[in-house]
C-alpha cells in the first residue's frame, strides 16, 4: 500500500517536472542557447532596426567603438534603449553624434484616439513632444458621402494629474467635410511646458456631431530633427547614426 502511494507520488513529481519544462519552453531555450550566440539572440529578441532596434545599436557600438554616449532618439515608444551603449565613466557627457531609430521622415501622421464623437485624445503626447517641434495641422476624415459644409469649433485642452483643465487653443474649421482638408494648427510643443502626466484632448463643439459616421481626427507633427541638417555616418533602413553639422 505504502509502495503504491510512493509510486504515485513519484509519477506526480515527474508530471510536474514535465509541466515546468513545458511552461518554460526548456527545450526551445536550450536549443537557442546551444546554437545561437548571445548577440544573435539579443538581436532576435529586440529587432535590428525595428522596435527597440538593439541589433543596430550593438552593430554601431562594435563598428564605431562608441564610448561617448551619443543621444538616441527612438521614434517608436519603447523602453529606454541607452543601456546598450552606455559608458558609465562618462555618463553625463553626450557626444556630438546622435542615433535616430525608426526615423519617420520630416513629418509624421498620428491618429487621435477616439473616446466619443466629441472627444479625441492625443496619446503619449510627452513622448512626441521630445521628438517633434509642433503639431502642424489637423485632418478630419469620415464615411459621410454628403458634401455638407461644416462649421465647427474645436477646443484643445490638457488635463493634469490633479484633474485641472487648461485650454490651449480654440480654433474654427470651415470646409466641406468630405474633402479631408488639412487645417493649419502650428502648436509648438515648447510653449506647452508638459509635465509627465498630462493628457491632451481635442474637443469638438458641435451639437450635430453624432450624425457623422466613423469620424476620425489625424494630426501631422513636424520633426525636430531633419536629416539634411546632419552628416550621416551610417544608415540602415530607418536607423541612422549622424553627426551635427
Amino acid at each position, binding site marked *: 500500500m505504502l509502495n503504491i502511494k*510512493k509510486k504515485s*507520488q*513519484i509519477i*506526480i*513529481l515527474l508530471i*510536474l*517536472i514535465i*509541466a*515546468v*519544462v513545458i*511552461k*518554460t*519552453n*526548456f527545450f*526551445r*531555450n*536550450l536549443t*537557442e*542557447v*546551444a546554437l545561437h550566440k*548571445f548577440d544573435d*539572440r*539579443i538581436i532576435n*529578441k*529586440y529587432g535590428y532596426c525595428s522596435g527597440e532596434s538593439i541589433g543596430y545599436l550593438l552593430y554601431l557600438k562594435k563598428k564605431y567603438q562608441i564610448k561617448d554616449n551619443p543621444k538616441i532618439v527612438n521614434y517608436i515608444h519603447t*523602453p*529606454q*534603449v*541607452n*543601456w546598450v551603449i*552606455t*559608458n*558609465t*565613466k562618462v*555618463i*553625463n557627457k553626450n557626444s556630438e553624434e546622435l542615433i535616430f531609430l525608426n526615423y519617420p521622415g520630416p513629418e509624421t501622421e498620428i491618429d487621435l484616439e477616439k473616446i466619443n464623437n466629441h472627444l479625441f485624445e492625443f496619446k503619449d503626447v510627452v513622448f512626441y513632444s521630445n521628438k517633434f517641434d509642433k503639431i502642424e495641422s489637423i485632418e478630419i476624415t469620415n464615411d459621410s458621402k454628403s458634401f455638407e459644409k461644416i462649421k465647427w469649433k474645436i477646443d484643445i485642452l490638457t488635463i493634469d*494629474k*490633479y*484633474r485641472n483643465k487648461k485650454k490651449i487653443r480654440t480654433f474654427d474649421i470651415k470646409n466641406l467635410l468630405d474633402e479631408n482638408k488639412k487645417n493649419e494648427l502650428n502648436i509648438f510643443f515648447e510653449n506647452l511646458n508638459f509635465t509627465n*502626466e498630462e493628457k491632451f484632448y481635442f474637443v469638438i463643439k458641435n451639437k450635430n456631431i453624432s450624425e457623422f459616421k466613423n469620424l476620425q481626427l489625424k494630426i501631422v507633427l513636424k520633426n525636430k530633427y531633419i536629416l539634411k541638417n546632419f552628416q550621416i555616418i551610417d544608415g540602415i533602413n530607418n536607423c541612422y547614426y549622424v553627426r551635427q553639422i
Partner: protein
Amino acid sequence: MIEFLQIIFSFFLFFLIISVPINIFNPKIFLNNKFSILGTASFNLILNCNILLFLSILPIALDSYNLFFVFLYFFAFIYIYFIKNPKFDLYKKFTQFLLLFFIIYLIIATNVAGELNLGWDAKYFYYIYALFFIENQNLYDLGKFVHGTWHPHLGSFYWAFFWNLMPIKFEYIGRLFYVFILCFSIFYVCHNNLKGALISNIIFILTILLFYKYGRFSGLQEVLIFSFLAILSKYFSLLKNSKNVFYVFFIILGCNLIIWFKSEGIAYASIIILLLNFSNQISRKIKIYINISYVSMIIFKIAIYQFFDAKLIDTSGHPYYLDYISSLNFSFIIYKLKFIIPYLSYYILMNIFFISGIIVLCLLNFQKKIDSYIKHLNYYFILNLAFIFCAYLFRDMDIEYSIKTTMERVIFTSSGFYIFLIINFIKNLNKNL
C-alpha cells in the same frame, strides 16, 4: 554549449553562498542550537548577502576583490566540508536531496538565458547600476547617473558581482543569482528535513509552476524581496520561545537586506520589525535591541547615501511630498480610492499566493486555538494593506497610471510572506488525509 556549461557552473558558484561559512551539517560549531540543514543554509545566504552588501558600499572597484572573494569561499568550503569534518554519507544523501532543486534551477536558468529581455525599470535603472560596478566604478559614482538616485543599488550589485565572475561575461549570469535565491527560498519553505521529501518536492514544484513568469527575473528587484519575505515568514513560524534568538538575529539581517533592494523595502522591513515587537515569544530586553538595531540600520543607510553625494536616495525622484500629503482633500481621496479599491481587488484575485494566503488565513482564524504565527500573519495582512493604501493615496502621481504600472508588482512582493502559511496548510491537510 559553453554558455550552458556556464549556467551549470553558476549553480555551484551560488551554492558556495549557502554553504559557507556555517557548516550546514554541523551548525553547532558556530551556533549553539540545532538547526535543520536548509535552515542553516538560509542563515548562510542571509549572512553572505549582508557581507556582499558591506562590500558594495566600499569605495573599491569590483574587479579588485570579487575573484578573491570566491576563491576564499571555495577554500573555506573545501576546509569545512572535506578537511575539518567530512561526512561523506550525509553529503551523498544531501546531493540526492538537492537534485530536484538543481533541475528546477537549470530549467529556469535556461529560460532566462533564452529570453534575455530586460524589464522596463531594469533598462532604466538596474542594468545601468550593474554596469557601473562592472565598469569598475563604485556606489559613490552612481550619483553621476541622472536616475542614480532613484533606487537602492544592492540587487544591481549582486547582478554585477556574479556577471563579472564568469570567464565569458554575459549579463544574465548575474540575474541567475535571483533565480537561485528564489528557488532556494521556496525549497527551504517547502522542506523541513531530508526525510519525507517526496511530498515536499511535489509542493515545491507545484509552487514554482504557479509562480513562474519570466518577467520576475527580467532584472526587476521585487523577486528578491519576495524571496527573503518567504524565508523570514518561516523564521516567524519557528519563533517558539525566547531561546530562538538566532531567528530574531537573522530576521533583522534579512530586514537589512530588504531595505537595500528597493525603496519600499523600508515599509516591508518596518512591518517585520513591528511584528517582532508584537511577539510574545520575545523578551522586552531583546525587543529593545531589535528596535535599536533597526533604527541603526536605517540611519546607516541614509548616512551612506548622504556621505558622498549629499543626496538621500529614498526621497529624491520619488513622488512623496509632505506638502502634497497635507493638501489632500476628502473628495480627492475618494477619487483615488475609486481607483485603488477595484484595482487592488483585481490584482489580489490575480495573485494566487496572495488570494490563497488570505483564504487560508481566514480559515485558520476560525480554529479554536490560534497560534502566534497566525497572529503575526493577521498583523502582517492589516499592516500590508495599510501600506498599499497609503502608498497610492500619498503618491503625487496620476493615480490610474501609477496603479497600472506598479500595483501588480507590489501585490507580488507582498505575497512572499504568505508562501509558508499556504505550504504549511497544504502539508497539514495531506497529513490529515
